[in-house]
């Protein structure tokens, strides 16, 4: 409805009021620095940064905030997600801006989040062949800065996500050279945009030692450099102890790490010291732990300790992760498509009772737009295809988005299916760093007792006579299908088909979704296969 300017205040004893005020200090050109309650970083920080800082805490990492799917579906999914994150008490989101995407790709979501009152951290994920040099990196950032030049200050930029991960840049000085060039480019466009700058490697706190005037030699058009830049915040990640937060499928407990608290606090002290030294804020832009396999109380104790210790040092923190889609990072995720937010974690971080989450699509690669290899016979990510003929991906089916699945039924029926294992196996071909064992511990597709599931897809057959049959079963055991639909006749024009099923048995945590297409001497085109629930289960 309206905004109020920040209100500078001081709490005083009654007797202080009787003392004549000291003469007002001359007004500085810049806003007077503000001190946040409880700050242990010492000194003062510039008012704009302080105000925004308070609007970042607590934050949630969204991960790769994009589907390669059809944009309409992407936007609706992410709008629902953003509403959900906001209602769960998060004040900021941090998402990866792929260097493979143009800024406009993310713009709808950025606008929606800003309008919802969320602070938005655009963090560049430098991946792909178009990011091999400092010049490439600077070009990306110049484009982002120009695209978002007129956006409000609640849009902030984080220069780099873990350079050692992608683009696997491990020369510390070179990383800072890239960042320095990018900051200079951004400052030409937006002298006051809030920038979050971390160090090289995995952005651990010790590498904030590279975030210095020695490495950041840029000057704004007005002549301000690192030391004078009141809109620059330090950024770091903290996953100590690593063997606890990412144990690769092993069950570990905090008791296994006698000095774990000291590891955490030492990291935070380093970051706080950096803030004190340079009179700048510092933000923990990633922290968290894989929540499987874990003893629940142990995991929550770790979460609370880390969050409290960051707070104690006035370090805003952004949790990793609340991902709005199923992925191999599910073991980090505190948002499930069927189970909503992890309320125990929210009780620590946001102290907000989450509302039921919107109905998310449980399937990956619904639009058949992600694949491996080249040519007509591509391997389709996340899906398993079985039958007498190989599928192909085409770009002229006129169903949804750019790509669709083409199935030749001449030699017999063809079945497409998806479960956690098929997703993992296809993802691992391109991302071998992900732990197969850990991912399997938290399967993606669920059927909850009492929920009604709606399986939808777009299809078109070349000739009359083709049918589609849906099947849902438990992928973790050999058992009869819990649901098999009647064969649906497919039209020769584009139609959307919907099959509903109410699950009445025990919850199935690792479900498989299958669609079998039949029809002699026929070809069918399939697209946008989605599974969503209408919830009744708590």
């Amino acid at each position, binding site marked *: 409805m309206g905004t109020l300017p920040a209100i500078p205040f001081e709490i005083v004893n009654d007797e202080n009021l009787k003392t004549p005020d000291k003469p007002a200090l001359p007004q500085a050109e810049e806003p007077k620095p503000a001190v946040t309650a409880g700050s242990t970083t010492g000194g003062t920080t510039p008012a704009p940064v302080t105000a925004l800082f308070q609007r970042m805490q607590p934050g949630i990492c969204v991960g790769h905030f994009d589907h390669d799917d059809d944009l309409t579906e992407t936007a609706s999914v992410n709008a629902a997600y953003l509403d959900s994150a906001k209602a769960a008490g998060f004040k900021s989101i941090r998402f990866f801006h792929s260097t493979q995407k143009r800024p406009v790709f993310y713009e709808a979501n950025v606008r929606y989040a800003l309008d919802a*009152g969320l602070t938005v951290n655009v963090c560049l994920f430098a991946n792909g062949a178009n990011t091999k040099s400092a010049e490439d990196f600077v070009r990306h950032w110049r484009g982002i800065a120009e695209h978002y030049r007129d956006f409000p200050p609640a849009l902030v930029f984080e220069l780099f996500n873990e350079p050692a991960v992608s683009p696997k840049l491990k020369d510390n000085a070179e990383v800072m050279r890239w960042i320095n060039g990018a900051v200079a480019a951004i400052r030409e466009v937006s002298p006051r945009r809030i920038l979050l700058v971390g160090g090289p490697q995995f952005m651990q706190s010790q590498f904030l030692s590279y975030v210095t005037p020695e490495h950041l030699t840029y000057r704004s058009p007005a002549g301000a450099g690192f030391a004078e830049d009141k809109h620059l915040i330090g950024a770091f990640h903290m996953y100590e102890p690593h063997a606890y937060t990412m144990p690769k499928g092993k069950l570990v407990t905090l008791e296994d790490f006698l000095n774990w608290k000291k590891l955490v606090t030492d990291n935070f002290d380093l970051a706080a010291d950096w803030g004190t030294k340079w009179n700048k804020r510092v933000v923990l832009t990633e922290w968290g732990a894989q929540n499987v396999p874990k003893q629940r109380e142990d995991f929550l104790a770790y979460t609370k300790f880390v969050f409290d210790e960051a707070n104690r040092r006035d370090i805003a923190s952004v949790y990793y992760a609340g991902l709005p889609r199923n992925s191999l990072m599910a073991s980090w995720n505190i948002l499930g498509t069927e189970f909503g937010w992890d309320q125990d974690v929210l009780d620590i971080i946001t102290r907000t009772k989450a509302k039921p989450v919107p109905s998310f699509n449980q399937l990956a690669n619904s639009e058949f737009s992600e694949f491996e290899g080249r040519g007509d016979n591509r391997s389709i990510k996340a899906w398993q295809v079985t039958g007498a003929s190989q599928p192909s991906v085409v770009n002229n089916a006129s169903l949804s988005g750019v790509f669709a699945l083409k199935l030749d039924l001449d030699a017999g029926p063809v079945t497409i299916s998806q479960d956690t294992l098929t997703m993992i196996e296809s993802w691992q071909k391109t991302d071998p760093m992900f732990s197969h064992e850990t991912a399997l511990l938290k399967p993606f597709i669920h059927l909850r007792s009492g929920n009604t599931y709606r399986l939808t897809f777009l299809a078109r057959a070349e000739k009359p006579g083709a049918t589609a049959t849906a099947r849902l079963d438990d992928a973790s055991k050999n058992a009869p299908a819990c649901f098999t639909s009647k064969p649906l006749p497919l039209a020769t024009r584009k139609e959307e088909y919907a099959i509903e099923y109410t699950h009445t048995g025990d919850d199935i945590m690792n479900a498989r979704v299958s669609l079998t297409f039949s029809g002699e001497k026929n070809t069918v085109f399939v697209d946008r296969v989605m599974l969503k629930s209408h919830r009744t289960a708590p």
Partner: protein
Amino acid sequence: MGAWQGNAQRPMTLLDPQPVKIPVGGTAQVRFAAAGAFGQAPLQIELSDPPEGIAVDSVTRSDQGITLVLKADPQKAKPGLKGNLIASAFSKEHPENQGWEVADVPLGLGHLARHPV
């Protein structure tokens, strides 16, 4: 998604830019010049993550602006503490705003500002 659609807002200014001194156990007024900024709807102002012991006591409105009365709890407020308070304004009546923050933005920085930063 079309053009940027922000809320049309009238500028508000803090009449006294000096830090407001809130006595422990007492109250202090903060006045904003905001002619007609909030229309006629009943107004609610909430502090965002205020320091412990600081709260809004009351809000009054005139044609020229609004007056916010802040109070400091004698048991919880800590003398010497200073900083910036961040506040959000709500309409109590607008049905779409029931239970929702409508100005949940980085205050003091402007929201949906159509100007370079």
